[in-house]
């Protein structure tokens, strides 16, 4: 598969078991090997008086899975949206792959578009295109942005739909699929652009808990395959078992980060303690 970048450490389909038994420390070492795929420096954003991001720094290595948690209003969505320039930051730099954008300078539409397709985005509300079939949903941007032929794009789309176990839905409209299926289609659609990093903004928050599990399973497989991921989530088991690092955000900044078990079981910051207690003890 194309997106496997680190085949020695992330094996194929049997990796689920490997991961479950692996020591967290191994994973940290592995993930720290790669060069940063996403690098944020002094990232700031405000809406009027409201400072939503205050000089945030964050580096994410190739193949690393970062789980981002924190109370509502902390600025998690804004952070993700700044990474693919859905929001233009007021200050700081955003680097994704070899694309660097400096908030101080004018960002051309072309640079913004190039950076955007380097980062795949999955939204809480799926945002599939309701007027297109599932296959067209996944193929459209491949044709328009990557310049693939329709046949090439459709072939790649079918591969990805198989990977999220939804090839049989290819010729139906999204409305015919459940929420969990729609979110898996949205993941396939984002993967179709061959992104260097996948950004997930509370991908399971709009779903029933059971349906959310099938989406988390797909995300776990994606993590096994070596994809670099930043996942904003309240799913603590996912953060603990799948991520390499947990980042806690509050009030526009990163207040704590580290090895998942450490941060989740023994948070140091008072604000993280309060938040994590609230999500784990319900």
């Amino acid at each position: 598969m194309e997106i496997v970048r680190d085949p020695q450490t992330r094996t194929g389909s049997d990796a689920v078991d490997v991961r479950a038994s692996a020591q967290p420390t191994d994973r940290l070492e592995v993930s720290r090997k790669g060069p940063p795929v996403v690098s944020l420096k002094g990232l700031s954003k405000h809406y009027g008086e409201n400072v939503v991001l205050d000089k945030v720094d964050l580096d994410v290595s190739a193949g690393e899975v970062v789980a981002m948690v924190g109370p509502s209003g902390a600025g998690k969505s804004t952070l993700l949206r700044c990474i693919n320039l859905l929001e233009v930051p007021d200050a700081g730099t955003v680097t994704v792959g070899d694309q660097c954008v400096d908030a101080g300078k004018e960002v051309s539409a072309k640079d913004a578009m190039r950076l955007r397709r380097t980062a795949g985005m999955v939204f809480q509300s799926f945002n599939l295109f309701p007027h297109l079939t599932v296959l067209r949903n996944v193929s459209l941007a491949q044709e328009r942005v990557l310049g693939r032929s329709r046949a090439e794009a459709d072939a790649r789309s079918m591969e990805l739909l198989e990977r999220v176990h939804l090839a049989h839905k290819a010729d139906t409209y999204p409305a015919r699929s459940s929420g969990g299926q729609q979110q898996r289609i949205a993941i396939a659609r984002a993967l179709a652009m061959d992104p260097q990093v996948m950004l997930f903004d509370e991908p399971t928050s709009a779903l029933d808990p059971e349906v959310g599990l099938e989406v988390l399973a797909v995300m776990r497989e994606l993590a096994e395959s070596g994809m670099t991921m930043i996942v904003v989530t309240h799913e603590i088991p996912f953060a603990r078992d799948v991520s390499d690092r947990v980042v806690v955000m509050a009030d526009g900044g990163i207040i704590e980060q580290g090895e998942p078990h450490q941060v989740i079981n023994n948070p140091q910051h008072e604000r993280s303690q309060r938040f994590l207690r609230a999500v784990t003890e319900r």
Partner: protein
Amino acid sequence: MEHVSAVLLGVPYTLLVTVVALAIGAVLGLPLALARRSPLAVLNVPARVVIDVLRGIPPVVWLFIIFFGIGNQFVTLDPIQAGSLGLGLISAAYLAEIYRSGLGAVHSGQWEASSALGLSRTDSMVRVVGPQAFRVALPAASTYAIGLLKDSSVVSAIGVADIVFQATGDSRATGAALAPFLVAAAIYILLGTPLAIASRRMDSRLRMRVAR
């Protein structure tokens, strides 16, 4: 019965003026709607003024201005041209507002998902948002079209030989006060009904395909 054949002579003119005006309105309404939605004041303010002025003056007054004013002094316009142009411009204003509300009804997440995939603004509009806005706008646009079929009768005032023009002429010629207008009424109903049925069909078909 002689009333029927007299009034029927107006049908081609009514249809011609309606169709041409709708075509003009459908095309010109689009840039007007896009300008109206633009965040740039240099675009949205003039667009708003144009729309308000077009809709704020009675159609018959527009037709007189265009036919007697512009039509005599700058270019020569026959009544059919003046009528189609006048109703076309007015339609552009109404259709612009219909398009605009269609575009506004498309969830902002559709723009975001398109941008996040790297689609250009034009591609996002043409491939993603436009088709959905079209579906939303279709019922209102077809209601407008059916309305225009009737309201196009205003062109009889500048001498287009449409259904109402023929009925008026026939009434004068024969002295029958009521019959020619009842015939005209029946013809409008007969013309409008299939349009209404077709638009309802098209709407439910689109709805079925992309039901949420």
